[in-house]
């Protein structure tokens, strides 16, 4: 019977076309951040004076009509004498072929071993770059920065949700299982915390993070801040589910044979809510990704030299940037893409796992 359910769920999920597309995009995105250093042609921090605000590099295939493989040309920076706008002039004499497994900036792959091999690139050149998404104001490669920034954005939501769901499940299960005054206290507390609006509470909490923390700790702090709100919704629903589950025969049986309450909760109650937890997790990750980007956008979150999509987008917040350097908005597209995909997957999962729709957005 269980096998059948699984089959049905899988079938139902795969029927949801948008869900599949979302799933594929997410897998690609997470693979991307997993191998970010390798995929990124440059170190995300390395600045290049001669390529500030350089537009996305054009890749050429032919030289004088003859196919010579993908290559880029050398670029010279100049400034408009009146407007002081930066301009780049290409030098067709200087040809740099794009190769794979090319040597470039050194990095520590997964923090394990040092290497300088990148999937593709033109190597380190003085007068040419391969900036697929253009350069930022320090001449850093936006493509590489998007890849690395994704690490923060995509994992913050994931870990934040994980923490939220774990806390929510445990608190909810205890509340529902024990009932009585414990339940009353927890429910009131949740109700109180839920009556604070999300973004102001996030901001107020983000202000609590000591600004002197190193960026990695700030990152953890942000994750915890994000998870702070998510858990309450989970706890409420889990409580409801546990309330009905605890009347079930097998729980009564477990009690009769004298299993400890803790064991009953962790072994019998929580596992029975896993379906719901999975759906709820998928559906709350997008909110957290957006939350991280909002907090970073306001400058209360991730700070330089670390980076995240929200922080990258902060640099594209001016109208003149939209006009002069529209490529700076690319991180915004990545946020949309990731959030959209999570929503699709979550929706598909909800439809598949929960045909009776007990799961609503938390």
């Amino acid at each position: 019977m269980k096998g059948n359910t699984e089959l049905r769920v899988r079938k139902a999920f795969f029927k949801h076309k948008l869900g599949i597309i979302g799933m594929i995009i997410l897998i690609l995105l997470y693979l991307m951040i997993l191998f970010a250093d390798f995929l990124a042609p440059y170190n995300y921090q390395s600045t290049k004076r001669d390529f500030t605000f350089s537009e996305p590099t054009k890749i050429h295939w032919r030289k004088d009509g003859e196919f010579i493989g993908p290559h880029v040309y050398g670029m010279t920076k100049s400034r408009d004498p009146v407007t002081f706008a930066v301009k780049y002039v290409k030098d067709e004499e200087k040809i740099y072929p794009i190769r794979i497994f090319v040597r470039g900036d050194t990095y520590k792959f997964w923090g394990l071993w040092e290497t300088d091999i990148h999937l593709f690139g033109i190597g380190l050149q003085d007068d040419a770059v391969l900036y697929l998404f253009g350069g930022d104001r320090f001449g850093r490669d936006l493509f590489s920065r998007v890849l690395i920034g994704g690490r923060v954005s995509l994992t913050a939501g994931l870990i934040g949700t994980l923490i939220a769901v774990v806390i929510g499940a445990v608190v909810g299960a205890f509340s529902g299982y024990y009932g009585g005054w414990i339940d009353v206290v927890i429910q009131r507390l949740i109700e109180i915390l839920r009556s604070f609006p999300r973004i102001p509470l996030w901001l107020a909490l983000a202000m609590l993070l000591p600004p002197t923390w190193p960026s990695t700790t700030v990152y953890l702090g942000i994750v915890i801040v994000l998870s702070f709100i998510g858990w309450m919704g989970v706890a409420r629903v889990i409580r409801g589910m546990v309330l009905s589950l605890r009347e079930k025969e097998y729980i009564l049986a477990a009690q009769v044979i004298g299993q400890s309450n803790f064991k009953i909760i962790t072994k019998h109650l929580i596992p029975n809510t896993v379906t719901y937890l999975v759906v709820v997790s998928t559906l709350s990750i997008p909110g957290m990704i957006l939350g991280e980007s909002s907090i970073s956008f306001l400058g209360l979150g991730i700070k330089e030299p670390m980076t995240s999509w929200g922080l990258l987008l902060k640099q594209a917040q001016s109208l003149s940037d939209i006009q002069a350097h529209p490529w700076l908005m690319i991180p915004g597209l990545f946020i949309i893409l990731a959030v959209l995909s999570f929503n699709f997957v979550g929706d598909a999962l909800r439809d598949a796992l929960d045909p009776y729709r007990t799961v609503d957005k938390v």
Partner: protein
Amino acid sequence: MASFIIRRILIIIPMMFIVSFICFFLTELQPGDFVSQYLENPRISPEQIELIKERLGLDQPPMTRYVMWLKQIITKGDFGYSFAFKRPVIDLIWERMGWTISIALSTILFQWIVAVPLGIFSALHPYRMWDYILTFVAFIGISIPNFFFALILMYLTNSSGGLFSSQFIGAPLTWAKFYDLLQHVWLPIAVIGLSGLAGLMRVMRGNMLDMLGAPFVNSLRARGLPEKQVRKHVIKNALNPMISIAGMELPNIFSGTVITAIVLNLPTMGPFFYTALLNHDQYLVMTFLMFIAFITQIGNLLADILLAVLDPRIRMS
């Protein structure tokens, strides 16, 4: 029913106490205080900073200040004094209420007017092209960061935010002014509304699908009711659960749009709160948070009452 409402109202009182406590310590834990911004001003000597601290009561231990604050609220209804504005915080919040509420309510109205029919439409034609298109558009709506969307819309429409052109700010209400307002106000409503719209639409669609499959619907059909009348029953049943969502959504629309309101230059409480937060204008921040929590409670209460009015099962239990 009356006892239910009274009980609900009474619960709010102890809850607000806890809320006030949380608010206070949330602001207390933040590094720095209001006078830290004075430190770099060479016009102000360290001695004077001490003086200001004393005047504002910042030299007292936190617990004393909390008790004092609470006492003032209970005995005089005085929520304290804004350090920056030298005025009672409640006045300051009150000044900004008008627009905040108007925009929040119009946004909710907009969301419902758009989301409910689309959700119904989507549910009546499930898994068809239009359903997919609406779903897709709705999801894009949730997925765009508000501020980003606001910025792009501003750029595309050449708008400069705000609610009025400058010549109409403070001008007496005329048709021209109203027209000017309409020209401006659609932007924040669209931006803020779009993100919630998708969720509402999806919920409405889900509720509708649930209800369409409910046994009583078949029963109604079997009695020979025309499809139009059957749908009326279905929609009414599907709408009810949405009311509690509206109750929950109210506070977020009230204040959850801080960034959008900054980007769009709206005279609402969100940006005001953010500035106060950065300024460490403690009583202002606390009162604001409390106020929102209070609104939420009221929102939930109203939702519960409305739900009870509309649903006999709740009304009578």
